[in-house]
């Protein structure tokens, strides 16, 4: 009896039947928690770039393209960790359950959100998005003088330096 114990496997196999699913003809097994590709809501996104700074494989990038600021998502690099959705202050990024991403066209793997820019009041360079400035205004309740919101970081530095300079000169002159 002991010698033929391994034949018991036959009854297990009969009980379990076929384990393989007939994917793609049968739906694949994906739980409700599955993390697939991400989707960026272009309405909610303000182009702050928080997602691009945390993205471990740099699948999300942001940069100036002419007069626009473009947030780019390249599925080919994405590791589906969901950190972008985790850090997004606007809740603009959602993690979908989509994983069937094979394509013949490389371009299909790119997603973009294009933002109109604010140009620096002093040097004229586009430095941030219109929506980002609006969001900052909303969050700080209009407490910052508007002219500071429309000056790029470099010019702002110079401006502040000049102000301090004139104050110091003013004090010593009295």
């Amino acid at each position, binding site marked *: 009896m002991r010698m033929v114990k391994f034949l*018991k496997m036959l009854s297990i196999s009969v009980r379990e039947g076929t*384990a393989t699913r007939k994917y793609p003809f049968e739906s694949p097994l994906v739980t409700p928690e599955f993390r697939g590709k991400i989707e960026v809501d272009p309405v909610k996104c303000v182009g702050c770039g928080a997602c691009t700074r945390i993205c471990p494989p740099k699948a999300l990038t942001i940069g100036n393209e002419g007069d626009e600021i473009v947030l780019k998502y390249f599925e080919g690099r994405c590791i589906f960790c969901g950190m972008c959705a985790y850090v997004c202050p606007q809740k603009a990024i959602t993690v979908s359950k989509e994983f069937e991403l094979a394509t013949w066209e490389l371009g299909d793997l790119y997603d973009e959100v294009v933002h109109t820019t604010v140009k620096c009041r002093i040097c004229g360079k586009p430095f941030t998005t219109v929506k980002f400035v609006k969001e900052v205004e909303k969050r700080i309740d209009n407490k910052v003088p508007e002219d500071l919101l429309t000056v790029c970081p470099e010019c702002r530095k110079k401006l502040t330096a000049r102000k301090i300079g004139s104050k110091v000169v003013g004090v010593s002159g009295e």
Partner: protein
Amino acid sequence: MSHDYSKLIDELSRGHRSRAILSKILEVCGDSVLDLSRRNIIIKIVIKANCLRTALENIYKEHDLYLRTIAASDERSREGLFKLYYVFGIDSEGTNLVFEVPVAEGAKVDTISDLFRASDWYELEAHDLLGIEFNGRQMSRLVLPEDWPENLYPLRKEVSVEELKKMYQPQLISRVSELGVEEVVRIPVGPYHPALHEPEYFELYVRGEKVVDARYVGFMVHRGIEKLAESMKYDQVPFLAERICGICGFVHSTSYVQAVEDALGIEVPERAHFIRSIVLEVERLHSHLLWLGVALHLLGYDTGFMHAWRIREKVMVLAELLTGSRKTYGIDLVGGVKKDIDKDKIPRIKETLNVLRKEFKELVDVAMSVPQVKARLTGTGVLPRGEARAYSLVGPTVRGSGIARDVRKDYTYAAYHYVSFKVPVYTEGDNLARTLVRVDEVFESISIIEQLVDMMPGGPIKAERWEPQPMRLGIGAVEAPRGEVIHVVLTDLYGPYRWRVRAPTYQNLQAVPIMLKGVDLADAPLTIASIDPCFSCTDRAVIINLRSGSVKTLPIEVISRRVRENG
């Protein structure tokens, strides 16, 4: 230092073992010990390089002591010195003994590879990557390729990742231009293990049917992960760490975050500890089932292989339900986790575990009753206890040779101190012993998860805020399915200054030639597989070509339509 050390030793030691070790070190090297301190379970001894060997000669026979890892680091920009951190473990009291050894540029350090045989590769690696020289041993290249330029040490701070990338481009381009075509695809072919699907190479010397000697050549999968992490932020590194291994990635991300948390004294909420422990055990279940399947396949019992993997599939689905992904779970962050385990998932967890326990028992009963399986596992690939100790081995490999070393018990972490579980130990040291250790561990893991979900406390899953500090040393260790994983982190302001990863296979592989001696050739594949090797983990920071002798591999360049730049 003053000559009456007894009070200091009382303050620092964590038990009689560390007391004995500290007294001995101070007795023989008192004047060369620059500093002594303790933080939690880490006793740190800053010692002059010229006295390190003397100190270790006096303590290496201590019963519990084993070498866990050596981290070399370039701190010239801060203190004008390189540093070596030798991490030893004292199992019985869960103490980490860290020797911090300052090494001036160009100075030589005495080898300890004859005292602690495991240190062999660490020393070679420190030389390859940082240019640290060792006295009293033969030096050869271990991790860098043959054609790597002399005097270029990739882990030195003055060498940037960008520069290293550039070094490889011209080679590839010059080869392509030699072919005289515009576009080429490079496809590496071999060497691959027939069962493990990973690049590594064993040379077996056989007389008749018996293996009389064996040599391992590895380090073929360079990814430069440690260097890459130096340019990443704290919360990005867990995702990189998880990709060190495709089978047990979560142990690496957990080791890393634990090392950072240890270094910076971050309080992690209890619930996060529970979630980490549950997911770590789920990972062990899938890994052991995978291994058992592969082992049965190597024994020619493919029915068992199919059923092991059928059962494993239930664990994969469970992992996805708990974390969002079947593998590379991606939920570890410094200070906690980013995904909670909701209450409504607990019945599903328990249900899966019940099915698993029943079906796994059924499978093991049947598989172990197959006469050929039993015959080929019993008495093959024997690893004696003494060798297992001398090589500082870890995991099921050491536990199959009668040593109950388990990080979960000895240096407890996450939520393991809340649960009761056995550490299965077999003394035979053969392939059967290592198999049975893993079989028993599956049942233990099921029980651990059941206990954890029942006890899970409420509350937050992540520390609200924490402050980074520069140059703090932290150690994080996790009992991976294959054995102990240990990460050493030196902190910086935005990310790790130095991150040293040591995977279990790095330690265990060096003992495989011992197991292979005297086995029948037919049993060699299983014997190699019996340590559950993970070559990519071991190779995490390395590139190498086969070199020396008549063995040679050449890349095969296949002409096609596209250039793949990074190979």
